[in-house]
């Protein structure tokens, strides 16, 4: 690296390395979601129907999520019941 390059790099942060870091994070996150099982939306629908037999809830009030934790998966079910 020449002396000139040294001053130039001091002036502005290297945006390419910022780009790389941001991409690594988002791509890893999206790859995780990609591996979610196909049955999830259908299961969410059926769970919603069962809950609706007893309580009036909307589609948006039920959240189903699968999280990978090492060698075990955690199914998280979140239902917001009307006050």
């Amino acid at each position, binding site marked *: 690296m020449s002396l000139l390059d040294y001053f130039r790099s001091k002036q502005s942060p*290297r*945006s*390419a390395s910022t780009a*790389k870091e941001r991409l690594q994070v988002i791509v890893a996150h999206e790859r995780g979601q*990609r591996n979610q099982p196909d049955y999830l939306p259908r299961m969410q629908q059926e769970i919603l129907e069962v809950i609706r037999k007893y309580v009036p809830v909307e589609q948006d009030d039920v959240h189903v999520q699968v999280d990978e934790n090492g060698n075990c998966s955690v199914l998280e079910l979140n239902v917001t019941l009307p006050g």
Partner: protein
Amino acid sequence: MARIIVVTSGKGGVGKTTSSAAIGTGLAQRGHSTVIIDFDVGLRNLDLIMGCERRVVYDFVNVINGEATLNQALIKDKRTEGLFILPASQTRDKDALTEEGVSKVLEELKERFDYIVCDSPAGIEKGAQMALYFADEAIVVTNPEVSSVRDSDRILGILQSKSLRAREGQEPVKEHLLVTRYNPARVSAGEMLSVADVEEILAIPLLGVIPESQDVLKASNQGEPVILNADAQAGQAYSDAVDRLLGEDRAHRFLDEQKQGFLKRLLGGGRG
């Protein structure tokens, strides 16, 4: 046995059609009979890049619907022996390409050609999925830029889960990374992702790096695939990529910034 190669990217405007035209032409130049199919229904453009837009009579959808034979729809390239183009339809009907119809046309093409190059539309919707569904190999065209890299990763996910090979549990689609619009000067200034960065994130084998070049626009203005311009760096880089696609070993060129001579700088010359 014919090979089906999809040229895809997710993101638009990264150089899919330019790359399809160049690689299809390169394969034919090397003696392999090749057809390039435009899958971009409603936004036909391969014909313009190949310079045969005034010779389009029938298209892909006409063949699927039985309104024309394959022979009537195929356009023979006038410059390169053994090269044909199957243009996309300009219909606005998004459902014009059916899996059954596309499969039938591809089977017929497989008997006549060594290589079938599928120029995918942008996006991850049905059109793009149809273009990659039957592929044996995929060339993922990526610009060294955040949105393009992210979209390439998404299209890789689709290749790995929704292609025919994935569905039937066959050997996976062979993936190739083609980095286009590469500007070595900006990379060494730390303003652009390097080839190594893109390779590290996408983790697929590198087929080629096409330098950002004024010759690419010039070629599309004239309707001549840039690979035919043997003097242009972009043309040479595509040539190398085609050789690698055919299994030959070629060192990557044009990855480093070219120092311009004093006189050239003084005169403000220089080409991309």
